[in-house]
């Protein structure tokens, strides 16, 4: 095991979210609601990365996420890697995958959509994963993923 991996594994049990673009770190924190987590969370910001130059990572002790929760991250950073840590070992590595639907993440661009006028969660169906096309579950308007705006954290 090299030094880099040791650093990543330095929690006994939990999840390490790696290869987060530094500019997306706060968005990832918000999407996973880490502000509500009671177990220790360690954030590494602007670390050196061979692949990315600079990257960020988050280690969350004693907490695992469902695939669905994790896949929601693909909206902000599609190349995030996930390490599941058990007893200091990386027992599983996963890439995030674009989910079939996004819950409470993307804001509908249509001002006349019910989701922009009621205190409620948005739902978008991913109707084309390659081209990144989303469709609002409510008003049925389509939106390109690259243009999508995230809901402001207070509404999440």
């Amino acid at each position: 095991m090299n030094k880099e991996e040791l650093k990543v594994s330095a929690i006994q049990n939990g999840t390490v979210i790696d290869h987060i673009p530094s500019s997306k770190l706060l968005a990832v924190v918000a999407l996973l609601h880490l502000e509500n987590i009671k177990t220790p969370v360690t954030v590494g910001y602007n670390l050196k990365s061979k692949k990315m130059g600079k990257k960020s990572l988050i280690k969350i002790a004693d907490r695992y996420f469902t695939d669905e929760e994790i896949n929601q991250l693909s909206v902000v950073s599609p190349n995030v890697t996930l390490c599941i840590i058990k007893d200091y070992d990386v027992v599983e590595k996963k890439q995030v995958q674009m989910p079939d639907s996004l819950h409470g993440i993307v804001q509908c661009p249509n001002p006349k959509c019910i989701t922009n006028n009621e205190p409620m969660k948005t739902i978008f169906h991913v109707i084309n994963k390659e081209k990144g096309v989303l469709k609002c579950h409510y008003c049925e308007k389509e939106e390109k993923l690259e243009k999508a705006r995230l809901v402001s954290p207070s509404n999440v």
Partner: protein
Amino acid sequence: MNRSVITLANLSKEKIQYLIRLSEEFERHTNRRLLEGKVVATLFFEPSTRTRLSFETAANRLGARIIGFTDPKVTSSTKGETLHDTIKMVSNYADVIVMRHFLEGAAQYASEITDVPIINAGDGSNQHPSQTMLDLYSIYKTQGHLDNLHIYLVGDLKYGRTVHSLLMAMRHFNPTFHFIAPKELEMPEEYKIYCEEQNIKYFETRDFNEDVIADADILYMTRVQRERFTDLMEYERVKDSYLLCNQMLRKAKSNMKILHPLPRLNEINIDVDSNPHAYYFEQAHNGLFARQALICDVLNIGLDQILNDNTIID
């Protein structure tokens, strides 16, 4: 499973045919006491007298009682209350909720917060399934079937939600569509892509004259509204080009019928009204039977019960 009707776009062919069959029965016997003891709520967050009267007549003629609101002043007095809370409140009283709302997706959302079935009577510019249902029933009634028809859509194909819904609901029946519209109001790209995906044949033209429409089975006219144009010069240039008048019908096929969702502006000259091809007033009347079918369907009242109905009044 909630039986709400939010859109017709994803209904199966069998379901559409079934709803047409129900509409036929209600046309045969319109006055019944089938819904005696039921309460239908009509919540019009945006006024639409035409649609509300049609729904309320449909329910009344089946013996249901009606509660609801339509006056915009009444709705503004509930301002501050969320749609969520209004729907929760009305759910305590009604067996079915017919709602019209100015916001898109409102009916879908309402159907997710209550077990009382919702019938979408229009949500902004999104869906208006009872209009689509009466369009389908009108086409069926005038042609005897829905298959292999040449349907000409004329006027505002960009913002006209009725033509979009009709296009999607017809996909099961091998139609050929003809889109006739000015450049500014032409059929949006997403619906042309939809046609290609669904193997629906379509032709597009800017010309509207007696030769272009000579092969039509259905001529579906829509409102061309001044405020839809970003370029008012363009409006002035085209406003009279999409106007149907009696002399344009000389070459029409004998089975051809003219439909329009009403109210019309000046797309159809009044000299057409007495032409046997004109069908738009009967079309509106068909809305009554189509809405009776939708109300009974969401209340889980099936064809058997309707055929063996001993509450028929006439």
